[in-house]
């Protein structure tokens, strides 16, 4: 019994790492620009499918990760520079415009994925064994992917809190007027932020496609999953997102064990509704926002 509980808890925490990376890009973009990127899940899918293409060219999925992240950074930067920057205006009107734009973008990206990779479900086989210690058995690919995802998300957090460029991004998220008065180019910071958010989505996709199969239309559920993490943690809150990702991972794995995998898929949506009803500000609200 104890071994089962520990296995469920550890597996949940490991999935939490992957969810954290999936959500971090969305969180960063929302935190700085107040844009809810409804195409985020589709960027995760494209990152995964790019990894698939590189894998078919005999590139290790972990080696493909930086390439997928880099391509998605460029895509994100171009989208911000070419489309979203033109829609950003102060107040709710700007937020609604960018929301609708990313909604439309989700369809465009999904259909480009359909043209390039087809509609079939695809995955990348990677480290298919398992690690067994003290009776606890954990999949090797989940262990490695979770470690990489945690490392990536933590590296971004360190960049945000310890470097001047990261501090500039945080400053802009807290007061664009103050940041501009300090000589920061808000436009450049927005391009950097959206690019980085998309790069994180691409990296998450690279890892996730080795764990669960993707198809071009998988983006919507992934967006909801990422959004659940940041809503549960508190929009724009990185510490909250970390806690929320682990909670979501453990809840999914436990539900899957007790009620089956179909019920686990519903957990995300149930959790999302519960947050909206009972704690719309999330676990940590705005109190520890960076």
């Amino acid at each position, binding site marked *: 019994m104890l071994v089962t509980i520990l296995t469920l808890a550890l597996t949940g925490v490991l999935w939490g790492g992957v969810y954290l990376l999936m959500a971090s890009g969305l969180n960063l973009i929302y935190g700085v620009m107040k844009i809810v990127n409804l195409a985020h899940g589709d960027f995760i899918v494209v990152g995964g499918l790019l990894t698939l293409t590189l894998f078919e060219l005999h590139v290790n999925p972990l080696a493909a990760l930086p390439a997928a992240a880099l391509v998605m950074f460029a895509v994100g930067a171009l989208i911000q520079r070419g489309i979203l920057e033109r829609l950003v205006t102060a107040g709710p009107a700007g937020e609604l415009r960018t929301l609708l734009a990313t909604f439309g973008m989700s369809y465009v990206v999904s259909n480009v994925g359909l043209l390039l990779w087809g509609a079939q479900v695809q995955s990348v086989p990677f480290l298919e064994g398992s690690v067994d210690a003290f009776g606890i058995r954990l999949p090797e690919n989940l262990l490695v992917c979770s470690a990489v995802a945690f490392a990536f998300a933590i590296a971004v957090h360190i960049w945000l809190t310890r470097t*001047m460029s990261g*501090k*500039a991004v*945080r*400053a802009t998220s*807290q*007061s664009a*007027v*103050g*940041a*501009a*008065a*300090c*000589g*920061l*180019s*808000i*436009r450049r910071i927005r391009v950097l932020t959206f690019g980085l958010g998309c790069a994180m989505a691409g990296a998450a996709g690279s890892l996730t496609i080795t764990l669960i199969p993707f198809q071009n239309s998988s983006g919507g559920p992934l967006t909801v999953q990422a959004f659940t993490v940041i809503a549960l943690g508190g929009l724009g809150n990185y510490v909250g997102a970390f806690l929320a990702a682990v909670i979501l991972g453990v809840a999914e794995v436990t539900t899957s064990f007790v009620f089956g995998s179909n019920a686990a898929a519903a957990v995300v949506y149930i959790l999302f509704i519960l947050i909206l009803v009972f704690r719309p500000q999330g676990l940590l609200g705005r109190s*520890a*926002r*960076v």
Partner: protein
Amino acid sequence: MPADLLHLEAVCAGYGKVPVLHDVTVSIPRGDAVAAIGANGVGKTTLLRVIMGQIPITAGDVLFDDVSIRELPTSRRARLGIGYAPEGRALFPMMTVRENLEIGAYHATAARRAARAGWLFEVFPKLAPLRGRLCALLSGGEQQMVAIARALMNEPKLLLLDEPSTGLAPRVVGELYEALTHLHADGLTVFVVEQNARAALRFARTVHVVEDGRIARSGLASEMLDERMLAEAYLGHVPEPPVNAP
């Protein structure tokens, strides 16, 4: 070297289709301490926003160091040497005092930032023990000091202050203006807009009275330090008392 550090020539500006400033001409001589006073909503903050490029001008020009900055974004104007402590302070509340100051000199070297911050902790000694505290946790007066210190981090030629005394106790306002007086004495050009006319008149050498988006009167602060003229600045025309009034 031009005598005027900043010159606004016949500037018109507003928000959307609502005009606020009408044909405003103002000069800020190098090394001077200038104030714009007037009642709430007459266009004082808009004047500073125009100088910083936060709202576009519909006519006229803004010259800084004799060069038009009309088309430059706010960030470029800041890098040219205009320090700005905006209305509401616009601090980074979830960053520490030190981090706020660091961002104020983002483009400087780490050594220069550290030296500048060290000097500003001497100018505002109250901030020194608070350097590791989040700005959200500071009092209004402390936040105002951070806003001014942050605007000074980049070694500006001109410091713009928007209502620095708003919401502060008279003692804190006194401390703030004392620090500004020292900075001005060291050669810093300062332009402050204030509703607290008394504080502004005591600090500034030159004063512009703003009414309905226009410069209604300009002159030396020493000449305006008169209760009757202050009342006019805020209340409009004050009628002469009747000759046979008691």
